[in-house]
């Protein structure tokens, strides 16, 4: 299979490889694509139109700012109240990311345990489902009774972000090609002589986990992470609102509650805009991470070939 034959196949290979090399690392962004331009321009144009109409309407009908503030007034408030809002934003971000980090640790850790032992899977998985299907709004008042406020808020963010990571990673760890696992048995079954059979089996499972299941699960984990990122923010906000009703707190959601009580509607809007932007940035950041990690091999990250 050496010198003579590859020539013919090389021709086919060239056609197979060419579009990929062209599309590989951000290659499609080099020339302006009208469809792409439209996809950015249309939502931005619509946004500008709505904001402009809103502004004109508020001015024309002299709507009081405690009912509906004009966009310009929201911007002014955002700038004037920035120190307060910024401190609140940091607090919410801290809760969100800490909750997400703990969810990743717990979700991946538990998924690995489940994949290594059926016993653990049968005993724990139902409880993970119960935790998921019980609405976090209903749990948070209880948590606020039993825990210090910050810990309770963090726990809420963790609970909602935990499940998508657990279920996706579990699914991913199970989606290895059966034949690859057999191949692994064939080549990887060099068990240490001194080990008892059960330990040999366990070591071989750990090896398969690291070499095969871990990379196979990565796309699933990242999809779960994208969902969990948004959910962690929602969990943090829900818990802050529950805590805020009890008269304590300092996150963005608390600012929203407080502004509502004081009829400071422009500040309420400013906090809402910040929360919304935070969610968008988290989603974009996690999408970028996912694309970077998968762009060489996974179908989801590969540009369509024409």
């Amino acid at each position: 299979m050496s010198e003579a034959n590859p020539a013919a196949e090389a021709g086919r290979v060239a056609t197979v490889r060419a579009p990929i090399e062209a599309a590989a690392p951000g290659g499609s962004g080099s020339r302006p694509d009208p469809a792409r331009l439209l996809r950015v321009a249309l939502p931005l144009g619509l946004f500008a139109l709505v904001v402009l109409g809103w502004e004109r309407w508020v001015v024309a009908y002299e709507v009081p700012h405690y009912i509906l503030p004009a966009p310009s007034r929201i911007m002014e408030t955002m700038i004037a109240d920035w120190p307060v809002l910024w401190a609140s934003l940091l607090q919410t971000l801290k809760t969100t990311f800490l909750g997400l980090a703990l969810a990743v640790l717990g979700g991946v850790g538990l998924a690995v345990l489940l994949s290594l032992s059926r016993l653990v899977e049968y005993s724990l998985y139902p409880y993970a489902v119960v935790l998921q299907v019980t609405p976090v709004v209903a749990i948070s008042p209880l948590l606020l009774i039993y825990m210090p406020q910050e810990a309770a808020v963090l726990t809420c963010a963790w609970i909602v972000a935990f499940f998508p990571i657990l279920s996706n990673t579990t699914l991913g760890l199970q989606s290895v090609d059966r034949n690859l696992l057999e191949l692994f048995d064939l080549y990887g079954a060099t068990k240490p002589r001194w080990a008892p059979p059960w330990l040999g089996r366990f070591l071989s499972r750990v090896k398969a986990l690291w070499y095969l299941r871990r990379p196979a699960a990565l796309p699933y984990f990242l999809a779960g992470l994208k969902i969990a990122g948004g959910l962690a923010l929602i969990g943090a906000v829900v818990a802050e609102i529950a805590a805020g009703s009890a008269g304590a707190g300092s996150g963005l959601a608390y600012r929203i509650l407080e502004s509502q009580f004081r009829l400071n509607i422009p500040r309420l809007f400013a906090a809402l805009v910040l929360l919304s932007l935070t969610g968008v940035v988290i989603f974009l950041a996690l999408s970028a991470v996912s694309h970077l990690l998968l762009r060489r091999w996974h179908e989801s990250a590969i540009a369509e070939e024409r």
Partner: protein
Amino acid sequence: MSATQARTPPPPSHRSLDETPLGATLVALRGVDKTFANGTTALSGLALDIRENEFVSLLGPSGCGKSTALRILAGLIPPSRGEVAWAGGGRAEDHRGEIGFVFQEPTLMPWASVADNVYLPLRLRGVSRRDAGDAIAASLALVGLSKFAEAYPRELSGGMKMRVSIARALSLRPRILLMDEPFAALDEITRFKLNDDLLRLQHEFACTVVFVTHSVYESVYLSTRIVVMAARPGRIVAEIPIGAPTPRTETFRTTPLYGALCREASAALHGAMDADPAGGSAHL
């Protein structure tokens, strides 16, 4: 069988079939039965000697247990009764380094480059990536894919993926290559080319091949011996030595001998299917 055992003289630079003559049994199935947990009897009283440097095809309709026999040979599943006897003794586990296995699907890791895919068996044996470099390059050169070491599986055609799979099976320098319908999912043009490549490879590499197929033409073209199997229960019904000279080329397909052997193998296969109580539903 009117065929003679004549062989063309080997190129002097290669270790070839002629220098390591057929005869010594490398591995044998002795009275092997296999009954699966659901009660299906896949194999019954299978006895098969695989001799060194043979190219044996297991030919039979679907459900005749040919893949099961191959898996038992590889030690992937244990026989219900009987044994797999290796030259020099020892169980299947002791001979795992000597076995290369190729599935019907390429079964590559999509997240790893071609070179890393070929590296997998060596990696599992504890060879470092640096020490494995030469072996990986040599395996890829054998299948003509040296230029694609850094490519990813999705960038390759079906035939090339299968070549990577073969290179991976060769990376441990196996004494015996077990192939489970490796070319069944490929188009005919690619299959013919890979058939020739496989023959050249076996000649250069001087290894034993056990090849599972349901194609009469493929088995006649490739093999030095065809083992015809029947289903329900899986058993051997005929053995047909293919005495045509090796290495073979495309012109072999046009010879009267090829036609005669195809008819003989076909007749044996149809006999096997007629004997099947459930009716011969397999396709050639």
